[in-house]
Every structure is written in structure tokens, then in C-alpha cells.
């Protein structure tokens, strides 16, 4: 077989065998899967140069899995694009390279550092600067450079209030910006990907998934995840009420004390702003238990979202999502 489906051992997945003809009932997860596959095929057919925005987080990993399924037994007909802030957890990069290798996918990396070097953006002053807002520029530059007309994102509508109205096919103007007033109604399964010159689309196959759906799907499919998602010992500091991992790009500041705790990530982003959680969950099943009992949204741990209630929305308008 030309393409590999990754499972948690990095092996070719066995699949769920022939399905008996007995029942036409589909579980909600099967329906979400089929919907996401439909959306991906639709985008691949309607656009000339799609890419899959790969962040290293579980949502983009699930997207890779769905892309494999959508074009099976062929390869998915688009590259992975990673916007590397340079502030990633080392495990993320390691996983990214492993994934590109086992799937045989083309991996394109563009770095915020080169945007800084080219004078396109400026590093925030102060210690442990966040590159979160800088990556928007790198991303839009990359999309332009690669002449991308559709970028798959792992965004879900349950993530944040501002996302509840997001479309599967989300239109961006020639500046990469999102105009909430100018989105197209989406009816039935008809996705309108027509656009003017220089415009592009973000496509969100996971729109209707919830955090729990994603985790259950990962468990059901036995998808191999970066080790960051599982409980492990790590040096952390507490900053503004959020636990952050200590690393090369996130140094301990005066007045802070680093300590070793057993933690895991609920989302994966930059080390400078992605909150980690104290946890004992070191298996998928344990994580699912934890997610089920969680009392705080997964984004609750992201200090970048906390800056303002409408933070997400602003970043979306600028073209981050």
C-alpha cells in the first residue's frame, strides 16, 4: 500500500473490517467522520492548491488521519504546512517529523524567525516574548508564497463563542482577513468555494466536533499522539495563575520558582503561553475520563486567549485562524 494509516504503534492500521449490512444506523462519531471526509474531498476538488495547517496539536493530527481516510487508497493530495514559531515544545517537532515520515506527506515549514529576520515582524520586548500574534504574518506570507487557495484548519465551533458561527468553508479576503458580515450561508451539504483573485478559504472539517468527540475518535482509531498529551514529570512555573513548562524559550523569571510536577497538555501551542495541567492521566482512557470530568474549557489554559474576551475574534479577523 502506498499510504500508511498511523496507529499508536506507527503501524499500518488494520481497519474495522467488513461492516455487516444489518443496520443502517450510524453513530454520531461515524457521522462526524463521514462529514469531515466529505468536506475534505470537496475542498480538494474545488481548490487548486490546498494545504493542511499542521500545528502538532491533536486536532490537526486527527485531520491528518481523516485526510488519509478521505483519499484512501491514494495519498492525500496536499502538503502539510507548519508555521514554526520557534517556541514549540521539542516533542512537537519530533512528532511532526515522525508523522511526515510515516505518512509520506510533504511537509512545508515556515518560521516566525525568518519573518523576524526579514523585518516583517518585530519580537515583543521583555522576557519570554510571545510569538503568538507574530505567526499570523508568517502564515499569511506563506499562503501567498505557496499560492495556497484553501488551508485546512482544525478549528471546532465548540471551542469558543466567536467560533460558533464559523463556516466549514470560511472565506478570507485578499488580505487574508475574515469579515464576519460577509460570510456565505451554508446550506445542506453544498459548499461554495468560489472566490476572487487573491482570496482564499480556510476549511474546517472538524467544525461540528467537540473536544470529547476528538478524544473519543483518537481512542477509537488508536491514533498515536505526541507524548505531551500524557502525564509526565516536567519543570514548571506558575505565572498569572497558569502553569507553564520551563524550557529554552520560557525561562524562569526572577521571583518565580521552578518545580517538577506531574503534568500534561490539553492543547498544544507555544511553550510560552500554553498552560499545562496537573494530571495523572497517562493513557487515552484516563485522558477521556479527565476530559469528561473537566470543569474548565481546554482554552481556559491558554494565556493568549485570556488577554481579552474577544481576543479570539480579533485574531480571527486578522487571519490567524
Amino acid at each position: 500500500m502506498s499510504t500508511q494509516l498511523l496507529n499508536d504503534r506507527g503501524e499500518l492500521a488494520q481497519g474495522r473490517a467488513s461492516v455487516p449490512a444489518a443496520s443502517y444506523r450510524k453513530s454520531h462519531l461515524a457521522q462526524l467522520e463521514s462529514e469531515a471526509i466529505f468536506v475534505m474531498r470537496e475542498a480538494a476538488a474545488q481548490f487548486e492548491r490546498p494545504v493542511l495547517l499542521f500545528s502538532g496539536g491533536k486536532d490537526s493530527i486527527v485531520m491528518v488521519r481523516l485526510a488519509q481516510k478521505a483519499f484512501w487508497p491514494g495519498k492525500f493530495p496536499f502538503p502539510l504546512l507548519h508555521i514554526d514559531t520557534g517556541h514549540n515544545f521539542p516533542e512537537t517537532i519530533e512528532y511532526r517529523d515522525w508523522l511526515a515520515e510515516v505518512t509520506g506527506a510533504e511537509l512545508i515549514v515556515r518560521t516566525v524567525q525568518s519573518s523576524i529576520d526579514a523585518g516583517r515582524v518585530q519580537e515583543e520586548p521583555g522576557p519570554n516574548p510571545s510569538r503568538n500574534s507574530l505567526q499570523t504574518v508568517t502564515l499569511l506570507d506563506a499562503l501567498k508564497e505557496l499560492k495556497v487557495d484553501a488551508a485546512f484548519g482544525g478549528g471546532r465551533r465548540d471551542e469558543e463563542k466567536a467560533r460558533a458561527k464559523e463556516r466549514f468553508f470560511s472565506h478570507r479576503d485578499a488580505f487574508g482577513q475574515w469579515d464576519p458580515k460577509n460570510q456565505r450561508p451554508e446550506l445542506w451539504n453544498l459548499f461554495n468555494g468560489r472566490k476572487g483573485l487573491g482570496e482564499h478559504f480556510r476549511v474546517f472539517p472538524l467544525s461540528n466536533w467537540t473536544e470529547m468527540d476528538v478524544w473519543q475518535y483518537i481512542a477509537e482509531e488508536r491514533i498515536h499522539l505526541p507524548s505531551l498529551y500524557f502525564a509526565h514529570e516536567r519543570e514548571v512555573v506558575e505565572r498569572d495563575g497558569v502553569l507553564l513548562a520551563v524550557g529554552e524559550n520560557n525561562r524562569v523569571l526572577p521571583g518565580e520558582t521552578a518545580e517538577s510536577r506531574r503534568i500534561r497538555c490539553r492543547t498544544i501551542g507555544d511553550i510560552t503561553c500554553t498552560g499545562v495541567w496537573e494530571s495523572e492521566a497517562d493513557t487515552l482512557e484516563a485522558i477521556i475520563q479527565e476530559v469528561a470530568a473537566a470543569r474548565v474549557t481546554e482554552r481556559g489554559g491558554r494565556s493568549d486567549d485570556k488577554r481579552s474576551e474577544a481576543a479570539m475574534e480579533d485574531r480571527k479577523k486578522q487571519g490567524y485562524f
Partner: protein
Amino acid sequence: MTTLLPHPAPADGSENPYLEMDLLRFSTAGSVDDGKSTLIGRLLYDTKSIFADQMEAVERTSRQRGEGYVNLALLTDGLRAEREQNITIDVAYRYFATPKRKFIIADTPGHLQYTRNMVTGASTAELAIVLVDARKGVLTQSKRHGFIASLLRIPHIVVAVNKMDLVDYDEAVYEEIVEEYTRFAEKLDVQDLTFIPISALVGDNVVEKSERMPWYDGSTLLHHLETVNVGANRNLVDFRLPVQYVVRPHQDYRGFAGRIASGTIQPGEEVVVLPSGHGSRVRSIDTADGSLAEAAAGDAVVLTLEDEIDVSRGEMIVRKRNLPTVGNRFDAILCWMNEKPLDPSVPYVLMHTSRQVQAFVTEIVYRIDVDTLHREEAGALGLNDIGRVQILTSQPLFFDAYAQNHTTGSFILVDPHTHVTVAAGMIRGEAKEAAPAERSVSPDVVWESWNIPREEREARNGHKAAVLWFTGLSGAGKSTIARELEKELFGLGCQTMLLDGDQVRHGLCGDLGFGADDRRENIRRVGEVARLFFEAGNIVLCTFVSPFRADRARARALLPEGRFVEVHVHADLQTVKARDPKGLYEKAERGEILHFTGISSPYEAPEAADLTLDTTAQSVEESVRAIVERLRAAGVVSRPRNS
């Protein structure tokens, strides 16, 4: 606090209940302030779908606003611009789950751009919640919401009678609303209508059964949502696979990827590909999880065929003995969604399944007033208008009626310049060569199309259907001419039917008198009966005094342009009184008959009859010849070959 979601299976491999949950997509609609946001907030809150940080944010905002309670409506508030204006302007999707089901709510704002949003939200919904404020009762908007739900053929409608706490949980208030809405819904095509009295604010009958309404013995809203039958409107009969993408990993594999729109399929079955019509058999149904022994509506699969056939995106694989309609003209209901009105001179891009073609709207048959459900003439469709139209496409589509198949019966129109989606459409069926006969002001918008289209009957009969309407004073000669004409037509091999005034007065209209109202009803019934015979392919001859212009105009309106021929059989009063074959004029003059046309009731002569016959000057034969000539000129009956 219980957990948010069912616990997953332990690692020992026993069944994970999460994988057994099914999915219900529903839409919610209500007028401003009916409590829709509060209700959704309540559903999310009571099903423990709200996280602590979200709740804190809401509590904070409620406090800042000086609200004395936690305003659950804030949970579903969307974009900042809307927050500032305190309105919601677009469909928002919300998610929650119970151990039984996962729910996707399409939350459609009930005011600005209501129709556009409601139609969008309803297009994927299997159930619609229509909110009614118990204090306000059934408003026009509540009916509008029900109408749109029925138009989009949502199988289940729930009318949630909200704010019961503000009417002292009074059963009478509730019952009145139930009764009024039920009466209204009879005019719609609704399969399942359920009423639930609730208080979204307090929580009565939303998740927990209310003790304050012991008179209500139905389910709570959530229980209803959890148990209502899902997938009922899935079509498992007509196999349709619109090809989305061709998968060709190597020379020896050519797979046609798509999501099955309807029906089921198994390897070995005979299929044909549209539009080419090439036939083959299904070799395999492939997925990344293995090949399937059978696939059904909703499955995303890759089909391979036994024969090497060239198939591309936009084509459709169907079963050999179950074909959709293939055509480039069709009849549809269109919802216009753009500020720029419909322009019949613009070639729009039409997207239907995986196909994109150019399309013109060739005719706006009527617009539906969504509030009164009346049909009105319209020169254009503007934002939020709904109308019935005829569409012509540059290339054929493979379609079914929306009523049978939502996927192959729906389409959108896209502006070719701005690329914006401007309309949503639902196909009713093939376009009629002549527009189908219509009920002009009937409230029941759902009109089943005829089983055998009139055109087919006409083709078999060898002539077109028409209605000849003979009007004139009693004794003018209507019946005499019509009877002779019918024999003549019969001799020509035509299917005919004669409806005569005296005859229907004995049966169909035996309950009617001769006052203006009863005369109107008489003519209305005859018009409808004539229309039925017309649709059956007949040349229908109606001989009725029918003295009022308005009544005749109404009969004319039931038929397509050019198929209603008004024949004024004229003879002056002097002459008919002299003829008086049944002695009626004499009786009328003596006052023994009330409302006798020409004597004690007026006759409004046609202003522009299609044909006027003066029976004081013309013989019966001459009149008959004139009419036959007229029918030939109109193409209703063909000319004899040798002339």
C-alpha cells in the same frame, strides 16, 4: 456534579457507550425576547455542558449589567458587534450531549434576516423548536417559523410554549396556544407536531419535569429530544452517489469517491453512470477501514466498477433500474438570500450535489408571503423572499424532488461576479412545458404534483388540454353549441368533458342557491372540477351563465396562460326572452324566481372574450366551426393533414 459526558469504556475492551450515541441536529427559532437564548443556555447548563470558566464569564457579565440573576442567555452570545448591539445576526451552532445523544443546535435569530437564517439552519435539521411566548400567544412570526420548517421538510416540530411562569402556569393559556397552532399547522405539511409548556428561565420541563404544571403529562423538552426518532427522513431506497473525487493511486485502481446521498448499494449490483449512461457493476466499496459488504446513505466511500469507465466529478452513479430525473429545466422553490434581488437576465452558477452549471431563472411563478402564506405575483425576488420559479440550466442535472431526496433535490445559486451564495433552492420536479395549473391563493402550499404529468397524457391523446368556458344569458345557446362542438371534437378523436350548469346544480352544487355568494361558490367549484379534467388531458367544455367577471377571472387563473378560452355566447335579452325554452324568463318576470340573470340580477358581459359568438346572426354549425378553427390556431387540436 455529574460528569459532562458518559464515561468511556475501561481499557479492558468492553463496549464504549460513547460510540453508541446517535446524533440529532435541530434548529431553534423564536421572535426577539421569546427566550431562545435563555432556553439554549438552560439546555447547555442543565446537561452540564458548561465549563466553570465559561460560567464565571457569564456571571461576571451579568453582575456588570446589574442583572439580579445569572443570565444564561449570555452563554450563547456570539460576536462582539452583536454583543454590543445585543442582537444575534447569524446562525450559530451549539453542541451538547447526554449519555444517549449528541446534539447540534442551529441557533437561528428570529429577527433580522430571519428567513435567510432560518432556511440555512433548517436545511440540516431533523427537528425544529419554535418558541412561543405564553403571554403573547401565537404570533405571525411563530407561524412563519413553522412554515419555513415545513417548507424545508423538517420531520419534527416542537412548539415550546415558554415563560409559563409569567402566566401562573395556567393550563388554559397553554391549551389556547396549542389549539391555535394546531389549526394553523393543518395547512402545512408537518409529520410530527409536539407542544411542551416550559419556563426556560426557571427550568420547568426543560430538563426536569415541572411540579408546577401537574396538568401536563407529556415529556420534558430534553426527554423529547433524546427519544424522538432520528434518521426518519433518510432515503434508503433510491441509490445515488454523486462523484466528488476520483482516486487513482496507480494505473490499476480507479475509485470514485463520494458520500452516498441516498439508498444502499452492494458489490455486484448493476449501476449506470450519468450523464453518459454507461453501465457496469460495482466491484467493491472501499474505505480505509476495509471494504464493505454494503454501504448506505451518509457513508463516505470509494466505489470501484467492473468495467473501465471514465467517470469524473459531477457525474452520478445510480442503480440501473432506479434513475433520477435527468433534465435541464425544473420547477423549484427558491429562497433569496442576498440584498441584490434576483435578476432573470443573469446566468447564475448553480451548485447541485457535486455539479456546477450555469442557470437562469426563467420565470417567477409566484412569491409566497411567509406571514399569510398567500401567493402573490412577483416580478422579482428580494432578500428573504421565497418564491416558486422555473429554472433552466446550461447542462442537465440529475435530480429528484426535494420531498423525496434532500441531497439530490437541493441546490444553491451563486453570483457569478461576487461569488456569494445568493439563493437556496428546493426542486419540486421537472418544469412544465406550460406552467402547471396553480391554485392562486390557496394557503396549503404543499401541492403534490400529478402522478402522470399532463404533458404525457396530452402526448398520448394527440391534442392539448384546454378549458372552453361558455358564458352568456340563459337561452343564449351555450349548451346547444357546446353539445354540437363536443360531438365534433369527439369525431376528431379528442378526449372531452362537458360540464353543464343545470347538471352540476343537481349534484356537485346541489346545496347552493343563486345569490351572489352562492353563484361565486358555484363557479369556483366548477372551475376546480374543470381544472381536474384539464389535468387529466381533456378539452373541457363548461356552459354556465356565470354572470360575474370576477368569478370567471378566478376560473381562468386556475389554468395556465392560453389554455382557458372564454367564449361569449351572445344574444340580446329580447331574443332570449322570446326563445325562453324552459319558461324561466316568464317565471322570473312574475317574480317566482329570485336573482334571475337579465331580469333581477345583472349580467357582466366579458370585456375581452377570446371568442364572441352572436347566435342571433350565426348558425350553430358556424359557431362550432369558428370554435374548432380557434382551437387549431391555438395549437390545442392539430390541423387535418391534407389541408
